[in-house]
């Protein structure tokens, strides 16, 4: 079995994101970038499946500017076998990402495609679903447990009501939740080895995918400042305030 894992380079989750003065986006210059956290879970799960003997090869793919390669190198350092970097500058919307991934799937013919449930920069949560539609493959989203069977997957999903377990036939798309596993650390020797693993670079334009933005972004602004909290003397005052001032009960 072969697993394709998609990883995205985003602003590190510890960084306090700042909106550009002109409202055209957020500041990324000299800001620490990292792999999108749930994508790390996707890579980890693929590596675990390979370690259990159920997969033979893991291919990590990223789509983005030159430096996005770093996320593939990181995936290679924790156990992916080879990498693909599809080079595109600027923002790539989920639909374009899915179309690129579709082309790569046609070429690589993986049995499974793993990725994070959503990226922490745009929070779209669309790529996995769109890719499933384009490929006409089953999808298992928000996976917090994956059990690989003969020709299917048993996936536990994190849903609003709790946990839902479904079974999907292989080939399938799985989007991973943070609770799926604990991503491992990359060790120094593995980071060194990762530098020597093959990493193929492809230009998005060569794949024949139109990456032009279809969504017009009007303005990016900071969320309004939260008002300071107040202390109440007792429960009845709290209830009274929730009723009359906050009007929530």
């Amino acid at each position: 079995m072969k697993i394709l894992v998609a990883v995205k380079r985003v602003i590190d989750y510890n960084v306090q994101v700042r909106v550009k003065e002109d409202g055209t986006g957020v500041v990324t210059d000299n800001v620490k970038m990292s792999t999108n956290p749930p994508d790390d879970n996707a890579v980890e799960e693929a590596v675990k499946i390979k370690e259990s003997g159920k997969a033979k090869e893991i291919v990590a793919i990223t789509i983005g500017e030159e430096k996005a390669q770093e996320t593939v190198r990181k995936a290679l350092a924790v156990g992916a076998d080879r990498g693909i970097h599809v080079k595109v500058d600027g923002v790539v919307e989920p639909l374009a990402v899915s179309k690129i991934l579709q082309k790569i799937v046609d070429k690589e013919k993986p049995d499974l495609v793993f990725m994070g449930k959503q990226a922490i920069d745009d929070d779209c949560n669309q790529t996995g679903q769109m890719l499933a539609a384009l490929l006409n493959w089953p999808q298992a989203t928000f996976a917090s447990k994956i059990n690989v069977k003969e020709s299917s997957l048993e996936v536990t999903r994190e849903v609003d009501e709790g946990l839902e377990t479904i079974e999907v036939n292989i080939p399938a798309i799985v989007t991973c939740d943070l609770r799926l596993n604990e991503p491992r650390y990359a060790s120094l020797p593995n980071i060194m080895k990762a530098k020597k693993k093959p990493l193929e670079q492809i230009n998005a334009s060569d794949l024949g995918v139109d990456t032009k933005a279809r969504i017009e972004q009007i303005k990016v602004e900071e969320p309004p400042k939260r008002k300071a909290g107040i202390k109440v003397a007792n429960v009845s005052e709290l209830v009274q305030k929730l009723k009359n001032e906050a009007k929530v009960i």
Partner: protein
Amino acid sequence: MTREVMEYDVVIVGGGPSGLATAIKLKQLNADVNVCVLEKGAEIGSHILSGNVFETRALDELIPNWKDLNAPIKTKVVKEKFLFLGKKNSFSWPTWLLPKVQQNHKNYIISLANLCRWLAEQAEVLGVEIFPGFPASEVLYNEDGSVKGVITQDMGLDKEGNKKEGYEPGMELHAKVTVFAEGCRGHLGKQLIKKFDLDSGKDPQQYGIGFKEIWKIDEKNHQEGLVMHTAGWPLDKNTYGGSFVYHAENKEVYLGYVIGLDYKNPHLSPFDEFQRFKTHPVISKMLEGGKRISYGARALIEGGFQSLPKMFMPGALLIGCDAGTLNMPKIKGSHTAMKSGIVAAETIIEHLNESKDLSIYEEKFKKSWVYKELFEARNVKPSFSWGLILGIIFTGIDQIIFRGKLPFTLKHKHADHETLKPANEMPVIDYPKPDNIITFDKTSSVYLTGTNHTDNQPVHLKLKDKDLPIRYTLDRFDEPAQRYCPAGVYEVQIENEVPKFVINSQNCIHCKTCDIKEPSQNITWVTPEGSGGPRYGNM
């Protein structure tokens, strides 16, 4: 426990200006030397904080075509000011009356973090292997006592030191020469100075704590290329310190404050002095309508020539501010740190090629311009132990008339942890509450640093005696850790009327002030799990 081993010709601990300069110079001298740089921050630059008005002298020697290579050194200093502040007024000192070392017209306003990122790129092109996120946690020794290399920090231990799922043991890096370039108060450097008695016959090292904020200010208040320093208010005349205000590109101002850690009053809060400083009319007017976008703090070296330890030992070199090469009256350490790294590389190549002893470092260093600079600067800082006024008068005579060539050397008498007076003998300072426009509290400030340490890992701020803070330090000094820590790591909480000492180590911004100032030297800073600590952008 057996650990995996990797062998290098040279291992450099720390990816700051001195370590990266060493790496680059080594590769320039001999492309076949294999060199690796360990950096505890999540990336190069994320633990770098500095003013910074940059003198290009060392970089000119290291990479003469830095302009063509698009180094992030763009904003030339065009104007200088030096102000003495009173509470409401200010008095401008003519710049022609400033000692030559404090004139900056040939220098640039830069972000040192960005310069380090650029230096790292240059180093990688030359084939240096750089590993961010890997702190060196221990020194390894050969049987003959010489330094063999370092061990990297174990990853994936829980609070009690048990292995978590995904535990990754640190590995041994062996090198023919290990270069320690951890910056001020490096935790391995400190151990080496002690073990090899490197500071024997030297004065105790002197430190300061430096704060920095980056502000985006209104166009009308911004003068790109303006460098301003102040002395005086809000500090009393017996406390050594002052501010810097650098107008950088993109309407940004690098605003900072440095306070000598030899201050005496345990009630003094360096953080609050800095916040209060911003309320001075000269500063608050400039910041009006502006926005604070970054915050950080870091200890720095102030001891200079008298306190500079021996920088070589068997198997290793100690360079940059890990030893203490900052030039205090110049308020600059980046160029001296880089030069100390260049000299280190030259030494190492001769050591590897011709088996010369590493002790040749000393002679080379003494012949370099860094030594001359530090020698001439040596009497400035100690003269301020007589107070601001006498310090200024003496510095004028020493620096302007004699150019640092007076035939004597003033001594640093005390280590910084020895200078605090008992709390009941010193005045309590009433600091104003933050207005959240110009002044802020520690919590909202630390938030801007992007600091994080993985949950459930061993506390990296170790107490030698865990009861001492409450048993002794609280009563005698009103536990000054609550105030000298710029990140609110230390708190005394009252639970059922019993005081309890709390260490919020996840907030630590790796400034090392506690390791320096704790009056009983009861706190030891050790490396946390890799990538922990601040994620500074263009500091």
